């Protein structure tokens, strides 16, 4: 979005402007993302994101695969959060076909989704600090905790990252013996780790200087640009799909939505820390109240599912923002139209606005603070 006036002023100064291409092999573009940046000295004058290096036409694949066959493909969207992807897809199909989910499965979904949020945010903190040049110190501490959660996933679903756990009308398998106790132990330990991270990071003078006032987005603009998730709430907009739609059984848990006030990188960073605390609250309650019963609706048809003609849009609050699946059925065994509403892609809408006028080093931090995953951006 560059007006002609800006273009003129750019060409006027072009003598001293420097065009650099950050990515797709740049160390901190979080994958094969690319930004064409025009720099005036160290200041960013123009920044054009380039997408599609990881494009594999996920949607086309999905339109040729059965409804159930798509479930493992959704793991590969945001490969850090396969369980929330599963849930969003399952939710859409359940809406389309009108499938009820038993209570225990809903609880398991909440538990796995909140664990996913925790491990995503832990990794996020590490990557963000890495972008500021901490040489992986925070990253590895984040990963230490994340490993424990991945172990939980492994014992529950058999896979650490590509979980493929949810089914239409429930979940694939029940928790193994002792899993709940193990999960409780891990969630009880995490607050201490979070305290430690908070102590070390939130008051660190350089972290504060690098993030405060960088990439500020006012709330109105964030709404209009469709930002979702922590990036939106950092700008002070109270919108959390868990509260708004209260899908699953989220209305049974007592948790609050942390809100920032400025909408800069520091707020985005702090919001993740605060959100993890809320996730822990939910987890604690869900693990304690986990009801017994079937984990999958016995009437639900998974193989050869042929939903009635029509369309449905289901969305959940994934760790990165609002993840939606839009499905159109023509009564056949494959979706007629299958669309992923990727939070990572839409959150990048304002990337240029955030970066222009900032320094090159800030671009990396801003990109890090949005928290994108290229598997989801390019699909």
């Amino acid at each position, binding site marked *: 979005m560059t007006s002609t006036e800006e273009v003129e002023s750019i060409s006027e100064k072009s003598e001293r402007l*420097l*065009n*650099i291409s950050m990515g797709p092999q*740049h*160390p*901190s573009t979080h994958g094969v993302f690319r930004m064409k940046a025009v720099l005036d000295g*160290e200041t960013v004058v123009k920044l054009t994101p380039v997408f599609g290096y990881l494009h594999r036409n996920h949607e086309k694949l999905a339109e040729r695969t059965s409804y159930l066959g798509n479930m493992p493909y959704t793991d590969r969207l945001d490969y850090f959060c396969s369980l929330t992807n599963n849930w969003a897809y399952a939710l859409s199909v359940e809406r389309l076909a009108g499938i009820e989910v038993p209570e225990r499965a809903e609880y398991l979904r909440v538990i796995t989704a909140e664990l996913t949020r925790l491990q995503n945010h832990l990794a996020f903190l590490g990557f963000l*600090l*890495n*972008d*500021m*040049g*901490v*040489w*992986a*110190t925070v990253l*590895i*501490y984040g990963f*230490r905790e994340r490993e424990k959660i991945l172990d939980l996933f492994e014992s529950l679903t058999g896979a650490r990252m590509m979980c493929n756990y949810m089914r239409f009308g429930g979940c694939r398998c029940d928790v193994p013996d002792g899993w709940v106790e193990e999960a409780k132990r891990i969630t009880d330990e995490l607050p201490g780790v979070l305290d430690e991270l908070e102590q070390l990071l939130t*008051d*660190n003078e*350089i*972290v*504060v*200087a*690098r993030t*405060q*006032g960088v990439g500020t987005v006012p709330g109105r603009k964030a709404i209009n640009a469709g930002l979702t998730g922590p990036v939106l709430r950092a700008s*002070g907009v*109270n919108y959390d799909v868990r*509260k708004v739609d209260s899908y699953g059984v989220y209305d049974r848990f007592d948790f*609050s*939505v*942390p*809100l*920032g*006030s*400025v909408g*800069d990188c*520091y*707020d985005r960073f*702090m*919001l993740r820390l*605060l959100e993890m605390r*809320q996730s822990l609250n939910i987890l604690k309650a869900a693990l304690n109240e986990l009801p017994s019963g079937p984990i999958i609706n016995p009437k639900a048809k998974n193989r050869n599912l042929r939903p009635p003609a029509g369309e449905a849009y289901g969305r959940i609050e994934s760790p990165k923002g609002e993840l939606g699946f839009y499905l159109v059925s023509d009564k056949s065994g494959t979706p007629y139209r299958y669309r992923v509403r990727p939070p990572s892609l839409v959150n990048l809408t304002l990337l240029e606005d955030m970066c222009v006028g900032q*320094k*090159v*080093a*800030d*671009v*990396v931090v801003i990109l890090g603070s949005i928290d994108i995953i290229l598997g989801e951006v390019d699909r």
Partner: protein
Amino acid sequence: MWLVIIQLKIGIILTFFSLLFAVASLAERKILARIQNRRGPNRVGPCGLFQPIADGIKMLIKEDVVPRKADRALHFLAPIVMVAPMVLLFGILPYGGGLTLVDLEVGLLFFFAVSSVSELAVFMAGWSSANKYSVFGAMRAIAQMVSYEVPLVLVAITPVMVAGSLSLVHMVEDQAGYAIGVIPNWFVLTPWGIVGFLLLFVTSLAEANRTPFDLPEGESELVAGHLTEYSGFKYALFFMGEYFGIFAGSGLAVALFLGGGGAPLPLLQWIPPYLWFFVKLVVLVGIVIWVRASLPRMRIDQLMDLCWKGLVPLAFVNLIAAAIWHYSGGGWQGWILAGGLLVGAYLMLNRVVLRSRCSWERKYYLAKS
């Protein structure tokens, strides 16, 4: 005979620093790993002790890639120009105990004159690589080194003023002896000394492009800055040049403020001074590595702000404080006067620099619905 002794000394010093380079490159990875809760290199030899050797062999036999558009001559020369002056710097460090190679009357001047050549090396490396990231890194490096040289020189002048000589050996001699029989007369144990030492440490971190001032090669923004197009042995040379820069900077700090080869207690004077010198140097190098593992990188404008609005004025004030200390006789009056001046200056500068920054306190709301 004289020549043989000189050769021997050169041999000892070069061997020591080359070994220290090998050990430090391993130690850096080990310490970093320990701080980061992992193991670090542990495959080659016992506990990974032979890792530097393996690294050296790897670097030597690796293909030397020169980009097609690069300026071959400068691309080749840059690592040499980087390392050579750094090696020269070891010549004038006052190890004491007969190991001191040369006692130049203008030792400190020599130090700065020679170390400033490395800026040209960085420029040559960045420009000759024909890579925008390299040029960018070189630009940052030069801006940073030129700026930080100002407080570095200003701080180094303070002990010159007190000791009345530019010779590093003379400065170490000035710090010999013990007050009340136990406390060493090191400059670092005076109000201006401790400020000077900290300033010197910070500025030499910036001169050596180390975290948190490693912007020229900040890997998250500039890939590797001026080193982007270097590989194999040339890269190893740059690496060595940077380590030698850290050693020399630490050596200077030891000589100027930490009493050179002086023992911290009179009881320990039987240990030869050069050992003390090396121990202090190694401790400083360890702190440099520790800092690297724990601090994020600064941004270029903050770096410049820190230098011109923080360090340079503080260095000037420190100069005045040293003069006050010197003429007040160094007793408790000196502590009060010089210390008060420095603390006041620090607080005032902190406010001035902080003024342009955003507020620290943030409010977060927890919405229930």
